[in-house]
């Protein structure tokens, strides 16, 4: 029993996320990165629904057109730097063309002119060719979702939890081996 508890404790860090930056910051970051000064950009107080199905967010729920587009460009949860880079890329389009929800107004313009509520609407129709009728086909990316991306090199390559767990297991083995020798 004691052995099981030691094993479980040593393994616990494997299942603990190595970093917990809240994706809930994304809407606020959009406002600050884009210097949005018009009134009430977060129309519902949260702004999550420009990407997610509802304000609860969560993995697999960024199914609205803008959310699908950002995922297709490699945005992952908690990756503030990637969000900033993607917004800059949209802002640098000349002229602004990316209109993921097919409403005729470029997404970046809807964001900066506080028309976020419009961005939640999918106007693309069923024949647009994307997922669930949207206009944005997803692209597969390789690397686990908490892995470092270009410009985000401060994230540890090996999750801290895994490193602690491995060290714990090796330590336990050494202690056991020493006890056996005695």
């Amino acid at each position, binding site marked *: 029993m004691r052995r099981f508890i030691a094993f479980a404790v040593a393994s616990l860090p494997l299942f603990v996320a190595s970093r917990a930056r809240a994706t809930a910051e994304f809407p606020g970051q959009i406002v600050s990165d884009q210097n949005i000064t018009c009134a009430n950009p977060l129309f519902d107080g949260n702004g999550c629904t420009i990407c997610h199905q509802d304000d609860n967010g969560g993995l697999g729920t960024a199914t609205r057109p803008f959310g699908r587009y950002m995922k297709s460009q490699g945005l992952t949860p908690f990756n503030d730097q990637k969000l900033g880079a993607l917004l800059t890329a949209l802002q640098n389009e000349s002229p602004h063309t990316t209109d993921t929800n097919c409403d005729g107004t470029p997404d970046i313009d809807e964001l900066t002119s506080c028309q976020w509520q419009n961005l939640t609407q999918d106007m693309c129709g069923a024949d647009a060719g994307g997922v669930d009728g949207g206009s944005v086909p997803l692209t597969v*990316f390789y690397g686990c979702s908490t892995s470092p991306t270009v410009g985000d090199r401060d994230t540890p390559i090996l999750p801290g939890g895994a490193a602690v767990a491995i060290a714990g297991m090796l330590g336990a083995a050494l202690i056991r081996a020493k006890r056996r020798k005695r």
Partner: protein
Amino acid sequence: MTSAWVRRAISLVIVACACAFVLLASRPAHAFPWMIREGYTGCNTCHADPSGAGILTAYGRGMEEVVLRTPYKKDADPGKLGNFAWSVDLPEQLLLQTDFRNLFLTLVPSGGTTQFQDVVMQLDQSAQLKIGRFRMNGSIGYSPPSTADGNFTFTGGGLGATLTDAPGVDGALIARQYWLGVDIGKDEEFLLRAGRMNVPFGIRTIEHPFLVRQVTRTDIDKGQEHGVSLAYTGEKVRGEIMAIAGNFAIRPDDFRERGGSGFVEWMPSTKVAIGASAMITHADQARTDYDISLAAAPIWRHAYAVHARISPVKPLVILAEFDALLNSQLVAGVSENHGGVVGLLQADLQVYQGIHVLAAGEFYNGHVGETSTYNTTTATAWLGAWWFFAPHLDFRIDGVYSSGSAPGLPPSNQGTSLLAQIHGYL
């Protein structure tokens, strides 16, 4: 309607596998795995993974010296040559293995320009720590970045098993497997584990480009999935079932396939093994990069296989697998179901200890590229030679002709390939 049918099918498969385990799990594991020609029908004596492949046990290392590589002296005592780094005595609880595998590939496409590739297929450090009945197992490796110069490309492998973003300018860290497990049963005949593991399906073979492995996405190069599995190894029966939670080395989550997979293998004699496998997965979006004929929509993917491993005389081993496939999608409210088949027949002839001649034939018929010029029927022929020429070292050459492509293979697969591989491990 389709979803309900599939859910019922999943339940049936799980119940059938569970019944098979309960009914057939009768005797302790005496069977020695690894090479059926030697009379070893199972895998767990030589490999840490009970269904085969990956890091070797101490016994497996010894077997490699005794029965696999070419002997240069009669009845020579292998001594410590099979040990880690040819000499190191590791503690009983610890397994270590460092692998390097490099491939030089010449592609002669039908009607195209010859291409040359150097592929660092594997540069992995694997380890397993076992304390009592509990195990921690994993591997970590490096895949170098790709560079191209004219018709020559240098590249790494393992895309789909990467910890870091890939392909990247600095290469990528690869983690093919990492799991925690507990051995269960009087003779530790069961292994329950959770983590990233090889998917239990069909013949587990090192030839990961075989169509049966590529089309079903069950190769040991990068086809691992995260999940929970239960494996059983007995004298006459072995098998494994796995609940698949998805491959978290790819994103977004829409592409991750979830479901179940499993196989059961019956060994009526020490020279014959017959098995059956089933796999059902669902993803919110199909991998159109794997199969261009699929729609960018949710998909249920089914595969059902039968296989056999037979050694009629000691030098010869015949491997055969036949898989039935079904892709089911709901596209704009309309159900689309596409069937297919894929098969493998391989002969491994050991002409002298450590020297093998291999021949294989494969075929695929399915829903590939109906909207393009790619063939819907593909046949492949392999001929190769493999020499385990020194302790921990082997060299292999293969010639492969393929008449077309298949899901998981490059569209330009049609043509002839010449492969030269060197593999070494500590």
